[in-house]
């Protein structure tokens, strides 16, 4: 059995998304932040794949037969920058929230673990 590139990319994105969603459903802020980050990676890969997977194509329009679609690449760049900034912000807010409330559990309680 040969694995196609499409199968590898698709299942990879699916796996990262599943991990990201699992972590986002956890009750403490650190796994949630990790989950958001993983989800961000999966989304970036997904946008990239939505420009179709091109093999041996020039990145810009030239003399060749065609070109890889540059628009998803531009979108991914924007999404990466925004994702980085918002992750920084959510970490800062989670730290402040931990400081204000004395716990970082989503219910405000402590689920039995060490503080």
């Amino acid at each position, binding site marked *: 059995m040969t694995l196609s590139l499409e199968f590898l990319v698709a299942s990879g994105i699916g796996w990262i998304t599943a991990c990201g969603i699992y972590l986002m459903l956890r009750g403490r802020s650190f796994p949630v932040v990790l989950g*958001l980050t993983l989800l961000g990676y*999966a989304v970036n890969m997904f*946008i990239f794949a939505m420009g179709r997977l091109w093999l041996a*194509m020039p990145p810009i329009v030239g003399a060749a*037969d065609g*070109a*890889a*679609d540059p628009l998803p690449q531009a979108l991914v760049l924007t999404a990466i920058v*925004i994702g980085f900034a918002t992750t920084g912000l959510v970490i800062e807010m989670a730290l402040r929230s931990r400081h204000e*409330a004395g716990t970082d559990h989503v219910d405000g309680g402590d689920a039995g673990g060490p503080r």
Partner: protein
Amino acid sequence: MNVLARLLQEHLPVLPVLLPLATALLLLALGDGAGERGRPALSRARAVSIVSAALGLLLAVQLALDADAGGWRVYRVGDWPAPFGIALVVDRLSALMLLLTQLLLLPVAVYASGGWDAHGRHFHALLHLQVMGLNGAFVTGDLFNLFVFFEVLLVASYVLLVHAQGRERFRFGVPYVVLNLAASALFLIGVSLVYAAAGTLNLAHLAVRVAQVAPADTALLQAGAMLLLVVFGFKAALLPLHLWLPGTYAAACAPVSALFAIMTKVGVYAILRVHGVVFGDGAGASARLVQDWLLPLALASSLVAVLGALAAGTLPRLVGWLTIASVGTILAALGLFTAEGWSAALFYMVNSTLVIAALFLLSELVGAQRGEVGERLEPAGPVAQPTLLGTMLLLLAASMVGLPPLPGFIGKLMILQAAQGPVTPWLWSVVLLVGFFSLVGLARAGSLLFWAVEPGRGGGASGASPRLLIATLSLLALLLATAVAAGPLQRYTDAAAAQLADRAGAARAVLGNAGAAQALRPYRGLDAQGGHR
């Protein structure tokens, strides 16, 4: 002078984005003097903020007057041709939303200058950044830029929400940020699915393309569109994605929640633009894609929200639930997919935004005069200004509920008249029931706040400061002005709805003559299936 006027006229569509950005940068550079004695820097920041808000209002009025002449104002950033570059498009709907945002910003800036802006840093800069995001979302003609401006307004809102800090604000702030980031991820997935199927992100171009999508790609396109409905529905607090709103809005300080009154409307606007127009009539296999979902969900969310309003324990929470109820009413009218329905929705949106914003400001004014009971709906000592505040609450409640002659009545009447076909009994009964339950909830709140007085307990010592009162009263005056100018406003919203339905006109204006004839994807080559497109 002529050159300047021409330059201003030429670049008018981009100015609602650039002005708040420049103001925010200026405010950040000047600083707001946190920690200084006497704070001369703070009064300077207030002056800059209010002057900029007034300028923005003038711009929005000019754009609305221009838009009312008909036609689409297209601004091509960097003069790139439309489907490839970034296009800003101002039509009647965009101009109306810009005007509404700026009308809200000015009282909010004045109200915040009454003291809230001193409770944390850079309030005014963040306020203008948020307005930049709002204005950008309203003028952009491109789905991806809609995402970018959503992020701008959200990032500003994250910080504004926790302005003045405190445990309660962070308790709601962190989940708000996390939920919105998850929604942003869904937004990106939806946008890229739509791009994968249609090969464009320009909204006018997309409206042309969705009808031409190959049958094999239709499922992909529709999946993307439904994901976008989830995202916009989350922003608009559509059932079952509404639970974040009441607590979050109630936790924010009053001027911030007043400005947030327009944030749910951004979701409504995006649903109208994307699902109403692009996936509306004339979209081929995807025509009226969300109709089966939008109307029932909207009616259900307005009904659930009004029950929540009956159970609310504080005045801001009550207003938060009423926000959801009014958004549900607006979305139900959008879900009719007729020009009359859209016009009614736009008319009611103007009313509900002003009412909700004024109610958030008013609830703090009332709460400040009730001692330690504050905004909780419990008996307390008498407020210092019962007649003034009571009359304001009465008028706002009447417009919220939909009693004549206030604009809420006219808006609801337009919605009821727009209903046709088998949905009519559902729409009529839900809208009228929601009105009745809102009346009960607001009457309970009003009688508890102003009549259930325990004379022994000392209430708030003094009346509200003039600046806070002027800001709240100006929103009320706007509401009354809407009632007086209901005729012209209705003509405007009718024209806006008709303009939205004119897909061919929009495509001609944005794309020129070339756009419609282009091949499905601009870039060719071997695609994943190994064949030439």
